[in-house]
């Protein structure tokens, strides 16, 4: 035991007495927000060590995570890259599905608007391998009730007609093909004239006299005389007019985007169709100004049987096939 010099005893005693009273003060004093002062002091005394420890542990952890654990980061990057690619593909697919849903919604709306017309939705699954012919293949065939000469349309306008059927698929001749044609007329003036394909994006409207008033932008609709398409379906709009001999040379831009078809509607009847808004007068063709040969006359049918079917107009597909 180390002895304390007598002259220092009073100093130690002073320190001890003051310290005791300070502790007594600290025990008594209770601050509103922090509790007793003794606790405040304890926390205050420990907090620097806690803060230093926190910084120290945080530094070690940061060092570990940012340097030594980078091998996992590389793997995580690889996984994230793969996941990113997968998500991109998924986003693309979802966007495609959204667009498809929009198109199908349009088709559905069209179908609901023309419930009296038996129709069947079909998906374009292929195009012609021959660049000279403009045909497409549909995923619907004889098993679905699709027959030759049935009309194919979209909500924007007519597309063409079925020229060949197979059990599960069918081939459609587009309106722009050189062998294609449809009975048509101007929507406002009701002047009739068949529209035929030229093997190019634009169509040719025939047999319109030079005296007839035709303007750029006029709408061309089906006349229904071909017995394939009902009347007043959009065919296209006039984009070019030139005087000819003896008829005008009129170029028509197809209403349907024939270059980018994905879903179409097959009119599953060979009967002459009359849309709900057709009037008896319009159906009789009383307002036609210039007599024009029917589209089938302008373009002979692909084969005899289909021509007969078109002529007889016997319904082969019932509404139940829709």
């Amino acid at each position, binding site marked *: 035991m180390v002895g304390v010099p007598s002259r220092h005893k*009073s100093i130690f005693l*002073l320190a001890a*007495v003051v310290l005791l009273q*300070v502790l007594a003060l600290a025990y*008594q004093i209770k601050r509103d927000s922090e509790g007793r002062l003794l606790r405040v002091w304890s926390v205050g005394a420990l907090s620097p060590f806690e803060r230093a420890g926190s910084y120290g542990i945080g530094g070690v952890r940061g060092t570990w995570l940012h340097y030594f654990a980078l091998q996992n980061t590389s793997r995580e990057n690889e996984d994230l890259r793969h996941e990113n690619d997968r998500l991109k593909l998924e986003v693309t697919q979802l966007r495609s599905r959204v667009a498809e849903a929009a198109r199908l919604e349009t088709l559905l709306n069209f179908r609901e608007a023309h419930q009296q017309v038996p129709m069947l939705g079909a998906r374009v699954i292929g195009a012609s391998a021959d660049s000279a012919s403009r045909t497409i293949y549909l995923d619907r065939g004889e098993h679905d009730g699709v027959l030759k000469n049935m009309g194919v349309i979209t909500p924007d306008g007519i597309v063409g007609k079925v020229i060949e059927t197979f059990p599960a698929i069918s081939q459609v001749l587009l309106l722009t093909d050189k062998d294609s044609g449809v009975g048509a007329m101007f929507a406002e003036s009701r002047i009739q004239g068949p529209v035929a394909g030229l093997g190019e994006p634009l169509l040719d409207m025939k047999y319109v006299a030079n005296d007839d008033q035709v303007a750029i932008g006029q709408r061309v609709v089906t006349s229904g005389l071909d017995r394939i398409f009902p009347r007043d379906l959009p065919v296209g709009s006039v984009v070019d007019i030139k005087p000819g001999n003896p008829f005008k040379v009129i170029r028509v831009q197809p209403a349907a985007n024939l270059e980018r078809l994905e879903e179409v509607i097959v009119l599953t009847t060979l009967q002459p169709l009359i849309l709900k808004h057709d009037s008896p007068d319009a159906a009789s063709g009383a307002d036609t100004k210039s007599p024009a040969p029917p589209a089938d006359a302008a373009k002979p049918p692909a084969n005899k049987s289909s021509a007969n079917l078109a002529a007889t107009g016997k319904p082969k597909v019932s509404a139940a096939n829709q």
Partner: protein
Amino acid sequence: MNETYELRTPESHIEVHKFRPGAILITLIVIFFLQAFVPIYFHRLAILDLPLLITIYFGLSRRNPSTGLLLGMAIGIAQDSLSGPTVPIGLYGIAKTVIGYLASSIGARLDTEHPAARFALTVIFFGLHQGILVLERRILLAQPEVWFTIQLGIAALINALVGVLLFTLLDRLRKPS
């Protein structure tokens, strides 16, 4: 204990005083009584810190630091306990402990019998006591307290003047040497 003896230092011979039995206790009781009741009737006398003056006096007279600080502590804690709930026990206790220790230490080295020395020392101790109180209030109690005002200076002078008179009276309680 009741004898008078001399504390020998290289510079001088300083007398250590003893008091009559019970004198310190009775003095303390009277002082606290006065401290408690005089201001009720004489508001201006509230500036007097009689316990401090007693602490200084006995510290200077006994000239034993240990005794002085213990006596200061006892007086301070008593003052704390009599001051009400707003003053925690230990506030005056700490201040008077320090003052008792310093007074005893200085009394052991200087001749504090002269009234002028007593006056000066009382002013100094009063200021130091006030400084310790302010320090405690600021640090321990988180109470804003001014370090010095004119009133404090006047109070120091008045306390010193009263102290000189009081010390003369208390000298009569000493045992004759």
